[in-house]
């Protein structure tokens, strides 16, 4: 049997899927043990027990200063920013993406400009951004939006352009005006793609969130990581990174389920 036609048993599948993760953990433990033998105070690859202590401290012990559980307040703060940033980007992508994709005049007006903005490295313009929007929540959300919205807008516009022209024409023969083409034909068909696009940008969104929180903030996952980075407190950083990864993976998974649930037909089209 050709390798491409291999049919694996469920236990073999599970074993394969887990293998790299197990390997990673083993490699970490070995590296950590080796470094700790050299220097028992080594902070780079702390032992699991130190991480457990740190997790207990951050997640289950109230902070001395504020009485809050830091991990949870950080998470809440970050997720709020992330949610707002992703929400605004998604709305922009939907409105502008569809408009650019379907209206020739708007495509001419905004297409090249959005393409240009998508190429600007937003981190380099942070000072201007902060001056214009202040240092509050708005600028952090804005950084996420500026970072991911242009890419999502372009993706949406491309998806609209990819719709077979025949479909649009068909809708017109079914008496659709421009608005109805958008509302009944284009919008429902690009919504599943919007979710896919959002999933693809989750990593970037977290990146910009962390960058924004690193500049000015007093809570948030990125804030904490940068705060303790000065002390190389990897016993806190690793759990935070793992937690961020977990959150992102959950969001990714949840969005995919959402898409399947809202748009059952989009699943059927795959491979058609």
């Amino acid at each position, binding site marked *: 049997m050709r390798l491409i036609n291999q049919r694996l048993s469920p236990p073999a599948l599970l074993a394969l899927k887990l293998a790299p993760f197990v390997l990673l953990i083993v490699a970490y433990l070995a590296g950590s043990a080796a470094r700790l033998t050299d220097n028992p*105070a080594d902070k780079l690859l702390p032992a699991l027990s130190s991480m457990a202590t740190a997790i207990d401290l951050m997640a289950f012990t109230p902070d*001395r*200063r504020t009485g809050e559980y830091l991990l949870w307040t950080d998470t809440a703060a970050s997720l709020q920013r992330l949610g707002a940033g992703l929400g605004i980007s998604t709305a922009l992508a939907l409105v502008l993406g569809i408009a650019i994709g379907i209206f020739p005049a708007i495509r001419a007006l905004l297409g090249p400009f959005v393409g240009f903005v998508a190429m600007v490295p937003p981190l380099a313009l942070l000072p201007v951004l*902060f*001056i214009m929007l202040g*240092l509050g929540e708005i600028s952090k959300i804005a950084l996420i939006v500026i970072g991911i919205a242009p890419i999502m807008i372009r993706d949406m516009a491309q998806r609209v352009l990819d719709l077979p022209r025949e479909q649009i024409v068909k809708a017109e023969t079914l008496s659709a005006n421009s608005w109805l083409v958008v509302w009944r034909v284009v919008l429902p068909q690009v919504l599943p793609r919007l979710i896919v696009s959002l999933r693809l940008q989750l990593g970037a969104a977290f990146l910009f969130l962390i960058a924004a929180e690193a500049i000015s903030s007093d809570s948030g996952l990125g804030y904490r990581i940068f*705060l303790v980075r000065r*002390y190389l407190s990897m016993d806190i950083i690793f759990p935070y990174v793992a937690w961020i990864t977990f959150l992102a993976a959950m969001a990714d998974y949840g969005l995919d389920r959402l898409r399947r649930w809202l748009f059952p037909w989009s699943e059927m089209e795959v491979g058609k």
Partner: protein
Amino acid sequence: QEKTEFNVAWSIYVGWMPWGYAEDTGIVDRWADQYGITINVTQFNDYVESINQYTAGAYDAVTVTNMDALSIPAAGGVDTTAVIVGDFSAGNDAVFLKGGESIADIVGRPVNLVEFSVSHYLLARALDSVGLSERDVNVINTADPDMVGAFQTADVTAMVTWNPMVAEIAMLPDAVQVFDSSMIPGEIIDLMVANTEVLDANPDFGRALAGIWYETVTLMTSDTPEGAEARAAMGAASGTDQAGFEAQMAATELFADPAAAVAFTASADLADTMNLVRAFLFDKGLLTPTATSDNAIGIELPGGTVLGDADNIKLRFTTDYMQMAADGAL
């Protein structure tokens, strides 16, 4: 013009942690209320960004070092007055080598530091002390939060940085501290500066800042349970604990007594320091791109002495507000 709402920016550093503590515990609001004004205190993780924001006009006051006050806001045309001279570094900044005995062993090595920062200045002074110059080393710009990790890589053999990274690096087995700011005492000064225009129109703002500062510093330096409590809180806020924070304080010459701060600011040594600083900045091309000499920007010292261009005074040191604190006149 007069106004009643003021924005103050501070960044996380041992000498400036009191600002965050004062905000958290209501000291700020108390003093602001006393003068019938509002003071918004914003914490920055990123020191440079806080100065940039101040320079761009988003803030009325900011915590900054003497050198950066000259090179960023003053060089950016923002007339700036040092309201409070909070402390000077006495060991908070240090030069480390891997495998070396003294600063002279730095010759020919790449040196990781934040370029154009006080670390760079410290390096210049350190090299100077043994008759070397920057041409004898190779400077590599490195971001401050990454210093501790960076020091543990093989290609890094020399590093200049500040606390809390200094304390972390000092604990590493192969780190040798060959020079630190206690050898150039009083040259790296931590300030609270304010926009001169705003300050002149609203002296109450300056008074409130001084009031906040000395109340908080008095508390944190006191050997009482409340003082310990305050130090623990500041330690936590800066990402460490009380012991770690106290260790950093030990390397900081904090002026808890306003009279001492006044004496330091009014002494002639300040002029010498600022002369060294502006020469350094001019050499690095940081005094403004068009500067033809280190006289391009005027620095006014207490008592009216002016270093540099008297028609272009952009940085002013004053003892007025600290004096009021010393006199109990706030």
